[in-house]
């Protein structure tokens, strides 16, 4: 494989053909701020925070580091007054959308942003697209980026609660500004987006203790992904806690009942 000679912030390093600037920078412990990057998902260059300067040949140009593959010898500048100037504007715009994000607030202080410059939208979403990409990777049927340009927003199809959601919570976990919420109420798991219910997933009720526990409709897909598609998914009618306790009781009975030391209540607590 061809090796490229890259000058990264004045330091000569080598890169593999097709490696992105962000990967290279992380390899050499150069920090580039990102919001929409996740190692598990394909780069989308939605937040634009990772913009860096690249000089390939004659002219400098500004590119997003997360999805720019290096194909020629080049010089990369990740932190110069020019790059910081551009990034400052991006942070100011993102802060106007979402002033509550701690990560953005840190960056705003770091870059000396003027927070009065743009009228705050208080939308609380930075349109990084992580939730839709995560949803696509898991099931791809609940969240989408609807609209275009300034009107783009995260939404469910036809703005109605989705019936395809499996309640995995990947969107909640991945959201960099904690905008998507998940709660388990009245025997159903709700994904809440823009303060509106985006999906409802019925939670199974434990036949032993009566508590509701995690959704089981995704188990089949989980088993398939693990390459265990021949094994039927566990028939979960009992919650994990009860299942563990029942097993402890069973084992206790089998091994200790004959000695007369087994008491069901005591074992249940110990197990």
């Amino acid at each position, binding site marked *: 494989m061809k090796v490229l000679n890259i000058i990264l912030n004045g330091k000569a390093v080598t890169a593999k053909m097709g490696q992105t600037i962000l990967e290279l920078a992380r390899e050499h412990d150069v920090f580039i701020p990102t919001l929409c990057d996740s190692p598990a998902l394909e780069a989308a260059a939605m937040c634009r925070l990772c913009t860096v300067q690249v000089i390939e040949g004659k002219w400098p140009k500004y590119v997003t580091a997360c999805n720019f593959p290096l194909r020629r010898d080049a010089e990369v500048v990740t932190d110069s007054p020019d790059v910081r100037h551009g990034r400052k504007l991006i942070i100011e715009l993102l802060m106007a959308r979402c002033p509550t994000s701690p990560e953005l607030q840190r960056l705003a202080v770091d870059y000396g942003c003027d927070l009065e410059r743009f009228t705050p939208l208080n939308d609380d979403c930075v349109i990084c697209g992580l939730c*839709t990409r995560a949803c696509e990777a898991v099931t791809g*049927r*609940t*969240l989408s980026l609807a609209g275009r340009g300034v009107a783009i927003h995260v939404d469910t199809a*036809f703005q109605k609660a989705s019936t395809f959601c499996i309640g995995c919570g990947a969107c909640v976990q991945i959201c960099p500004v904690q905008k998507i919420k998940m709660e388990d109420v009245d025997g159903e798991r709700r994904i809440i987006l823009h303060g509106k219910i985006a999906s409802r997933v019925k939670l199974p009720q434990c036949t032993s203790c009566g508590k509701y526990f995690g959704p089981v409709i995704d188990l089949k897909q989980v088993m398939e992904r693990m390459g265990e598609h021949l094994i039927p998914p566990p028939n979960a009618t009992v919650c994990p806690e009860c299942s563990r306790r029942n097993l402890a009781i069973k084992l206790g009975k089998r091994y200790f009942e004959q000695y007369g030391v087994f008491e069901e209540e005591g074992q249940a607590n110990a197990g």
Partner: protein
Amino acid sequence: MSGTACACQEIECGEIEIDYSLLDKIIRYDYGGNREAMIMMMQAIQRVYRFLPEDAVKYLSQVIEVPLTKIYEVATFYASFSLEPKGKYILSVCTGTACHLRGSGGMVEHISKRMGIAPGKTTSDLKLTLETVNCVGACAVAPVVVIDEKYYPKANIATLNDFMDRLNAE
């Protein structure tokens, strides 16, 4: 697309009955059920109903095995797709620079006032949809009004009044 008449001509309100055999004809026979032809199928469905009914989109998603969210993304991305019912006639007023200078803004206002609808909206009897477009490429004959894909060059209030009188008489 031969022989497919507009299916919702007799329908008064927003209730649309979906003819699934017609959808099947479009999806499976006209375009072979290939997901690559999704946009063409959506255009064909829109030609039948003048918008994309939710049930038709759901059926399309099932048949070509594309997630509903993907189709929704496409439908909201392109301005030519509409998820809301459109009127029988679509009146587009060009508000590009040349037309604007020749008074298309006043024409939009006039239609809005007379028909009681804002630009981009449809009258409650589903007769007329008023739209504004940015340029139709006929600046020499500005201001331009497009009614059901027919161009009316050098339009004025009288042209519009004529049209609206005919519409109201129907």
